[in-house]
């Protein structure tokens, strides 16, 4: 009987439960999922400081968002007459509807934060240099896709918050010179946010953007492995390009086990958030009643704050220049000093500039989120 069961196990997993280092390597190589990792890795990359687990948590969140999103799609109807009603059904009658919506909402916010954090970390350790140039650009693309997914999802509840955030957000797009209005109509499918926009956002959010995201994630992970795994300091013991003779550890169980724990911890935190923190919902979208102030989602409020000064310079030029600059960064900053260190002497100016950029983004976002009241007037007390 036991042998028979073992036979079934092997028929699926090809090998038995790894008993030694050799079979552990084999296990890593013969599994579809696990072979995204090298069978043996440097021990430094297991340390928390090496990754902050930010990329992994981003991926875990993406998977959780996919799962909860599929559940929500069973009830959601992408039409202005019904969309908000389905939020009410989730809140009042669908079993676990509240939990599912809360989890989806908080995971979406967390993913924006974690992807950004991941990018900050990779910048700090110069993870965009050498072979990793293209993967950094892919990462910038993933950051952009995450924002786009979050933004498209923001409209779907069809409440006042959603409607006006997207109205404001799409009007920022209209500030693009020459093609702005066309671009906005392309997104909305109409002159204003309505049933066409809702359907477009729904299809983008549920089909097009996730499909692209996971394709790029596949490329991103593949290149992480091919480009030598995590960036570790040249000065660390056994660091750098992994010369012959220094000690590597098998990914099974050291890495896989840790990843499982991180995924479980992230799930537990998300469950707790979803249980005790309600996702916001406002009255049904009403095109004739503009809330004051009408605000975009929090991660766009920095841009909205800038757009308040100039629709073009703040709303278009600065964000476009930021994304373009991030994409060009690996091809402009190519010297290989200080790779793998957080605060190397050689990169003081670069780190300071990056720090200033982050500070600027943080400050404008905080001002836009907390210190802007009715009529976008400055308020000295947070709302």
């Amino acid at each position, binding site marked *: 009987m036991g042998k028979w069961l073992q036979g079934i196990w092997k028929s699926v997993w090809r090998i038995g439960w790894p008993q030694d280092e050799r079979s552990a390597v084999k296990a890593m190589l013969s599994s579809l999922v696990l072979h995204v990792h090298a069978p043996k890795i440097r021990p430094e990359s297991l340390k928390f400081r090496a990754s902050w687990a930010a990329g992994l948590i981003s991926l875990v969140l993406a998977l959780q968002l996919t799962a909860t999103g599929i559940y929500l799609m069973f009830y959601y109807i992408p039409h202005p007459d019904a969309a908000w009603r389905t939020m009410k059904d989730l809140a009042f009658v669908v079993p*676990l509807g509240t939990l*599912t919506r809360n989890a989806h909402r908080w995971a979406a916010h967390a993913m924006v934060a974690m992807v950004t954090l991941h990018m900050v970390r990779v910048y700090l350790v110069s993870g965009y240099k050498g072979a990793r140039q293209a993967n950094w650009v892919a990462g910038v693309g993933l950051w952009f896709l995450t924002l786009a997914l979050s933004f498209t999802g923001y409209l779907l509840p069809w409440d006042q918050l959603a409607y006006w955030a997207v109205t404001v957000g799409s009007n920022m797009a209209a500030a693009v010179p020459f093609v702005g209005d066309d671009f906005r109509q392309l997104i909305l499918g109409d002159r204003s946010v309505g049933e066409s926009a809702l359907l477009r956002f729904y299809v983008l959010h549920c089909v097009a953007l996730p499909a692209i995201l996971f394709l790029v994630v596949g490329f991103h992970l593949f290149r992480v492995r091919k480009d030598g795994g995590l960036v570790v300091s040249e000065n660390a013991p056994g660091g750098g390009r992994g010369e012959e003779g220094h000690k590597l550890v098998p990914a099974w169980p050291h890495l896989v086990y840790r990843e499982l724990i991180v995924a479980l911890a992230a799930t537990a935190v998300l469950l707790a958030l979803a249980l005790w923190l309600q996702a916001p919902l406002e009255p049904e979208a009403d095109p004739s009643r503009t809330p004051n102030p009408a605000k975009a989602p929090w991660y766009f409020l920095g841009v909205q704050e800038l757009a308040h000064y100039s629709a073009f310079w703040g709303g278009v030029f600065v964000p476009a220049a930021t994304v373009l600059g991030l994409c060009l960064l690996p091809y402009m900053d190519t010297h290989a000093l200080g790779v793998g260190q957080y605060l190397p002497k050689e990169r003081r100016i670069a780190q300071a500039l990056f720090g200033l950029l982050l500070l600027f983004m943080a400050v404008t976002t905080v001002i836009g989120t907390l210190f802007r009241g009715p009529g976008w007037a400055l308020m000295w007390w947070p709302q």
Partner: protein
Amino acid sequence: MEQQNTSRRKFLGQIGGAALVALSAEAAWASLRFAKAPVSYGPSQRRNLGQVGRFAGGRVYVDDAGLFVRHDPKGLSAMSSTCTHLGCTVREAAGGGFVCPCHGSTYDDQGHVTGGPAPRDLSFVRLIRDARGNVIADLAQTVAGDTRLQVG
């Protein structure tokens, strides 16, 4: 000492593994519960067929309820037009009786099966009258074929 460590670690691993099995079971159960919609936005099972006078002409087909309503001396009866084989809507046959267009089941005028794969006779649904004299059909309740709603 090493032995103790190993067994403790094994035990913790088993606890975690069991928790994961429990989590999977919970998720499966929750998915089933989630998927079973507790409210219906479909049309009501109670259909207003209108006033009795409408059925004076013997047998009348009410298409939004899918019912053949017959007015005979004993009263009103409502026969479902749903074939008992696979649920297609039967039609009145040229030579009397009913025929199902999907797999050729045939029924006589009283709804008794006369041929084809249909396993049962056509069903009859309960009729009631509301305070304003309208005839209401309750599609959720079937009754015997000889049940009649007395009308004055």
